[in-house]
Each structure stands twice: as structure tokens, then as C-alpha cells.
């Protein structure tokens, strides 16, 4: 698990801000759920795991498969293929319980996208949206009141497998092995992502895939570095400190780093991604030898004033602004943040370069952490069991990949009404932006693609940046495995250890406070989580 994810903290804050209640991580947080939220018996998984069949109806400009990265497109394909010939719906309403991260859409009567969507689905779709930060609370109450929609996004609650067994349809007969081929676009979802949808050896959910795109890396403002004659490249931790020094100018209120680069520095020490295997056991990355060295470097960065002074007190949004306006030319963020930066950097000369982590002692390349394979799962309510094939067909429709007509419609609506073509690329207009927000991408989605029409050449830049670091990236051996203790306590444990990290970095506690904190983490539940995950992992062999 990533121990210093600003986004995670903020998310919890917002959830808490709403009211004292259940909160957790919904949405795009690419870690933090740690090892939770997935099937706990990987052995049966391999037998029941849906067969993977790559969709090759659309040729990418840059194919990413061999590097374990997404395909990249410079342009939206000119004559999109029609992926689905028959509308999946059965004419009866489909109710959906999910969350949203965007403003709600206009109501059906005023929403031409929604009307057209219903037509193409072949059933009137009723979406019950909830702001993502409130979703866990809403989900728990809706479960208690037995009010789940036919299709629902699984919230973060304890005893997830038991809850699903009680409330959701077992999809195994429909999706395991070759059965999934009936739903070719679900079969196109990456194999690893399915870990999150398999519980107790049964498939209960369709995953929303992410993976490499949600890996964290160090962004730098290529233009600013260049203006100072610096290169977006560091060879050792000392080199990195030098770079930060050169980019900091207190008179101009400029600080090299928008936030503490915890993960980047950990990458320099080859700290494992959450967990590492030790025979049959799992060892937490918190116990890695390099951690104290990592903290020493971070402490130094903070003390020297290379990290923005408001890094710990501002909002997550602020770090993006600092990078966009150049007041912090370095920021640690996920690859998926790229488009946001392209949209918010106001300087026309601004450019993004990724700095790959080196080994701390200069002996080679460091290793980044691979993002979680899935960010959520969608299940089908037991009450809708008789319509399960229709509903899977609906999810299949929502998973049609980039380059198809369905994808174009789903994300961009109708040409002339919701989007216009700029150099052959669809660009949403205001009407389109407000009408397409039915929370579709959290019900089911295609594998991620790199598509950055904002700026010519960006797709290739990002593709190459990912090609440079992702193939060697460390994956989390426990990703997708379910641990009850983790589901209940991971957030609390993570927050506690984050707090100690923050205290040490900001000099409120000595580095010697780390070891006892890790010990406490272990005894408070960390050991139990390791055990449960190891058990799940072991049974997978």
C-alpha cells in the first residue's frame, strides 16, 4: 500500500466532513484499499477465472500490450467500428446504484444523451447517483433497507464476500472460463483486474480496470527545467537533492516539490509495492530496510525548504495548481493525471517530462510501483436474477473499447449535439459535458487508453514515458486478495503510520520513531492482515 497518498487522506476528510459515519475509499484511489476488495481464494480463481480474449477490432497508433501499458491513440479512429449489433436491453427498466465524481446530468426529459442512450441500450436506464465521497454511507444504508438497484457498484464495507453472497447474483456460470465469450467486451478486460471481482471462489463482480495508468510517478515541468539548463533526469538521491535545490527559489516563492515525494524516494530504494513475498509469507513494505533512509532524505528535503510549505495543510487540488502554475515544478502524481495538467497549465510553452527514479546510490534505475489493476467492481442484485443475461449484456455494452462507435457515443454523445470534431478528435461541448454524466464509467468500462487530444504529440510523450518505467514496475503480490482485517482496519492503520511518517518528515518526531510505529502497526492488525493475505495467496498455488 502506498503509505503517503495525499488523495486518500483528503478523500477520508471529505467523507468525514459529511457526517460521522462510514467512510472508505471509493472511486479512483488506486491504493489504500490495500489488499482488500477481492477474491480470497485464488486457486479456484484460476479455474473459474474468465478467459481473456483481446479485442483487436481497432488498431492503436502505439500498441502497449508488450510493455504492460495501455494502447495510445493520436487521433480518434476516423470510421469507428460498430461493436454491438443488437441492443442488450429487454425493454424493462434497468435500475443502477452507483457513484459519481462529476456534476449530475439534467433529468431524462431534458437530456437528449440519456434518451438516446436508453434507445441504444434497449431499456430505460434509471441511474441513482451519489457523490463518490458519500457512497460508502449510502451503500450501507441502501443495503440495510434492501434498496439496491439491479446493477450496483460494490461499496467498501466489512464482510464484503458474505454481503455479496446475500445480495448479489453469483456470476460464475455466466462468466467463468469460456462462458464469458458471450460478452466479448467483458472478456477484453485485463486478467488481473478480475481478481477484484472474485470472492470465495465465485465471480460476483465485473471490475472497472485501471492498472499501469494509476501508477505514481514524478512529473516535472520540462519547460522550467530547460530554461534553467536542467535535465529531467536524476542519477542518485544526491542528484535529486541537487535538482530540488536548483529549482527552489524562496525569493520568488518557488519550491521544487508540490508535495512530499514519499513514493518516489521509496522507489529509489526498491521498497516493495505494499507487500513482498518471503516464501509462503508476505512481508509489508513498511518493514523494508530502506524506509529509515527514505525518511532521512524526506526530512532533509523538508528541512531545506524544497517541499512546498503548505504541502501538508493544503488541499489535494492545490498541488495540481502549484504544478500547473509553475510554483512547484515537480509533483508526484499518477499517470492518469496527465490530461488534467494539460488542461490547466496556462503557459503555452509548458511541457511535461517524467523523471524516472534512480537507485539512491547511483547504481542504476529505481523501480516504480504498478497501480492497482481495478478500482472497483459492479455486481448484479439477487432480486434481478432472472434478468442476469440482459444485465451482463448491458455491462458488456458499457465495456466496448476505445475506437468503437459505442465508446464514442458513451463518452462523447452525438456529433453536432454533444461534441464537435477538432482535427478529427471529439471535443465535448458544454451541453455534452453536462448530459453524459450518468456515472457510466463506474458501472463498467473499457481498458484505459492513452488519448490526449488537448495537445498534439502528448499521447506519444506519455506512451514513451510509461514505456520507460512500467515494464520494470513492481506489482503488489497481494493486489486483489481479500482480507477481512484489512477491509476493516486498513484505513485506520494506514492513517496512523502516515501520521508518523508526516511527523518524522516535518521534524516533529525523530527517525527513531519509525521502528516502534511499524511495530505498533504490526500488532494492531498488520500481522493479521499479512497472515490473511498470505493464506489467500498460498491457496492460489
Amino acid at each position, binding site marked *: 500500500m502506498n503509505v503517503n497518498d495525499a488523495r486518500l*487522506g483528503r478523500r*477520508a*476528510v471529505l467523507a*468525514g*466532513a459529511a457526517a*460521522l*459515519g*462510514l*467512510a*472508505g475509499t471509493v472511486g479512483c484511489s488506486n491504493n489504500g484499499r490495500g489488499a482488500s476488495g477481492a477474491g480470497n481464494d485464488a486457486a479456484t480463481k484460476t479455474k473459474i477465472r474468465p478467459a481473456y480474449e483481446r479485442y483487436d477490432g481497432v488498431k492503436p497508433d502505439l500498441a502497449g500490450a508488450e510493455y504492460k501499458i495501455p494502447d495510445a491513440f493520436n487521433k480518434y479512429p476516423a470510421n469507428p467500428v460498430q461493436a454491438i449489433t443488437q441492443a442488450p436491453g429487454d425493454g424493462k427498466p434497468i435500475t443502477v446504484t452507483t457513484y459519481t465524481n462529476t456534476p449530475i446530468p439534467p433529468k431524462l426529459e431534458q437530456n437528449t444523451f440519456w434518451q438516446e442512450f436508453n434507445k441504444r441500450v434497449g431499456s430505460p436506464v434509471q441511474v441513482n447517483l451519489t457523490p463518490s465521497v458519500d457512497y*460508502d454511507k449510502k451503500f*450501507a*444504508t441502501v*443495503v*440495510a433497507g434492501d434498496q439496491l438497484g439491479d446493477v450496483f457498484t460494490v461499496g*467498501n*464495507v*466489512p*464482510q464484503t464476500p*458474505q*454481503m455479496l453472497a*446475500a*445480495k448479489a447474483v453469483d456470476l460464475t456460470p455466466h462468466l467463468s472460463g469460456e462462458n464469458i465469450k458471450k460478452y466479448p467486451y467483458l472478456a477484453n478486460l485485463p486478467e488481473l483486474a478480475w481478481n477484484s471481482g472474485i470472492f470465495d471462489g465465485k465471480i460476483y463482480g465485473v471490475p472497472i480496470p485501471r492498472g499501469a495508468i494509476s501508477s505514481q510517478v514524478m512529473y516535472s515541468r520540462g519547460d522550467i527545467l530547460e530554461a534553467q539548463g536542467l535535465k529531467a533526469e536524476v542519477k542518485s538521491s544526491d542528484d535529486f537533492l541537487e535538482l530540488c535545490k536548483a529549482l527552489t527559489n*524562496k*525569493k*520568488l*516563492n518557488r*519550491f521544487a516539490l508540490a508535495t512530499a515525494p514519499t513514493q518516489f524516494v521509496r522507489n529509489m530504494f526498491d521498497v516493495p509495492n505494499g507487500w513482498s513475498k518471503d516464501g509462503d509469507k508476505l512481508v509489508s513494505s513498511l518493514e523494508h530496510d530502506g524506509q529509515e533512509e527514505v525518511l532521512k532524505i524526506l526530512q532533509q528535503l523538508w528541512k531545506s525548504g524544497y517541499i*512546498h*510549505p*503548505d504541502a*501538508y*495543510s*493544503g*488541499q489535494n487540488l492545490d498541488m495540481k495548481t502549484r504544478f500547473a502554475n509553475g*510554483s512547484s515544478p515537480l509533483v508526484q502524481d499518477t499517470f492518469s493525471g496527465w490530461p488534467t495538467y494539460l488542461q490547466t497549465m496556462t503557459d503555452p510553452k509548458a511541457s511535461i517530462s517524467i523523471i524516472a527514479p534512480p537507485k539512491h546510490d547511483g547504481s542504476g534505475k529505481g523501480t516504480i510501483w504498478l497501480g492497482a489493476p481495478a478500482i472497483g467492481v459492479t455486481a448484479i442484485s439477487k432480486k434481478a436474477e432472472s434478468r442476469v443475461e440482459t444485465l451482463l449484456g448491458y455491462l458488456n455494452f458499457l465495456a466496448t473499447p476505445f475506437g468503437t462507435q459505442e465508446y464514442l457515443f458513451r463518452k462523447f454523445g452525438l456529433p453536432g449535439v454533444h461534441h464537435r470534431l477538432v482535427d478529427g478528435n471529439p471535443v465535448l461541448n458544454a451541453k455534452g459535458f453536462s448530459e453524459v454524466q450518468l456515472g457510466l464509467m463506474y458501472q463498467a468500462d473499457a481498458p484505459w487508453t492513452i488519448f490526449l487530444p488537448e495537445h498534439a504529440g502528448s499521447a506519444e510523450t506519455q506512451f514513451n514515458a510509461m514505456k520507460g518505467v512500467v515494464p520494470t514496475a513492481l506489482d503488489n503480490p497481494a493486489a486483489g486478495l481479500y482480507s477481512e482485517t484489512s*477491509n*476493516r*482496519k*486498513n*484505513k*485506520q492503520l494506514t*492513517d*496512523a503510520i502516515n*501520521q508518523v511518517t*508526516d*511527523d518524522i518528515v*516535518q521534524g*516533529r518526531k525523530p527517525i527513531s520513531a519509525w521502528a516502534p510505529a511499524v511495530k505498533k502497526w504490526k500488532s494492531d492488525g498488520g500481522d493479521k492482515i499479512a497472515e490473511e493475505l498470505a493464506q489467500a495467496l498460498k491457496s492460489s498455488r
Partner: protein
Amino acid sequence: MGEKRSLGARLRRDYPVLLLAVPGLLILLAFQYYPLWGNIIAFQDYQPYLGVGKSLWSGFQNFSVIFNGDGEFLNAVKNTLILTLIQTVIVFPAPIVVALVLHSLLSNKLRQFVQTIIYLPHFMSWVIVVAIFQQVLGGTGMINNWLRSHGYSPMHIIGNVEAFRALLTSQVLWKDTGWATILFLAVLSQIDRSLYEASAVDGAGRWRQTWHVTLPGLKPIIILLLILKLGDSLTVGFEQIILQQQAVGVDASDVLDTYVYNNGILGGNWGVAAAVGLVKSAVALALVLSANKIAHRLGEEGVYRG
């Protein structure tokens, strides 16, 4: 009305009063009292998908968060009480002072103008209040940016452990002082003007009038609010604090609500939330009842006479 009457006679006499109470009471019974049964999940490992009927009983395990006496919990209680004390001493009287000043203004227009302005911050959410303070006092806030670009060393306010309580207090003062004057102004407006005239005839100046007429007029509401606030003394600024916790660390900032939030609620432990809620309510009830009794002894109305 002290004379003894039969129940039936009293009912016959009082039923119009009871009738007036019925609609409001029904709402309280339906939406406040009836759902209170749900608090039995304090003794369960409650799971929404199982419901109260099928969730497992866990005895007092949910209460262990409160009664295991670990350092972090005691620290949170300590911080809570200190903040409550500060807020009672500084934040509570502030709107009274402002209300007195506003009340003494001669021009209605001016008073209404000032009132309208000072209510504004109440409508800002904590996220925005915290952001505004950040923009002004933060490490790269207006003040520090100016200091740094003129060669002075910046002031360390936000993120400074020592300044944290002062920061919280000033945020609360800023946000809610104006709004809190409303109730006091309403009370002041109902003080019988003839009392002032009478005291003026007796030769009282403005200060003496304030002391002998205005403040006694405010006394019942001040005592009422203090008693009710006492019931809230274990609750301080959850949202405000959790938004700023990362900057100063748990030691300085953890209060009861944030502690419970971090230790139970985040994991979907509904039982823990209910358990803590029950204990807090019981403490609040005890505090309010005893404070009311004391107020009563001192000859005040308090919340109620009993």
C-alpha cells in the same frame, strides 16, 4: 395552580395545551425516538446486509475503544476538554459583546448593515474557511509571500503545533461570532424599554444601564445556552479539525470525534459509532441535568424547572 385535583379534572383543564403539543411531539417520537432502537447495535458486530436481527452480538466489545484507556484515547479526551474550555471562555462571550455593541447603536440602518455583513462567514463551509485562512496565513499565504519576497523570514502559523489551538479558535470566532449574535439581539430587542426609562430616571448612565438592565435581561438565555453547550462539551469541531489534522499531527489535534472516526467508523464498524454515541449521550444528559439543577438552585430558570 398548586392545588390538588383529580387526574381527570386536570386532563379536562389541560387538554387544549396537550393538543398544541401533539403535532410536534409526534414528529419527535417518529423520527427521534422510534429510531433510537437502532442503538442496540452498540452491542453488536452490526452488518447492514444482515440487519439487527441476524448480526452477531458482541457484548461490550464496541465500548473497548472508550474504556481501554490507551494513551491516544486519553490524549483525545484531553484535547477535547481543553478546546471546549477555550471555546467556552473565548468563543461563547464574543457574540454577546458584539450584540451589546450592535444593540447600543442608534441607527437601525447601520446596525442592519453590520449585522448582514457579519453573518456572511457562517454560510461558508469549513473547507472554504480553512482554505481562506490558508491563503492568508499559510506558508505561501499572502503574508508570508510578502515577507519572503521582501527578505524577511516567514511566520510559521499554519502547521505549527504551538499555534494550532489559537488557529482553531480564531477560525471559529471568524466563522460564527456574527451568526451567534442573532439570538442575543432577539432577546435584547425584547427587553422592556420602560426598564431603561425607569433606570434613567433613577440617574443611571449607560454603563449602569447595561449592567443593571441589559445584562440581567440576557441572563436567562446565556444560562440556557451554556447548559445546552455543556451537553455538547465532548463535541468540538470534527470537520474543522480533521481537515487540518495532517498539518500538525494527531498528538496536537486529535479530539474525541476524530479518534472515534479513525478507530472505528472508517472500517465500517457501525457498532463502535453507536457505542461511542451512547456514552457521549449519557454523559451529556448527566451534565445537562446537573447543570440545570445548579442553575435552578441559583434561582435561574435554566432549561426547565424541576
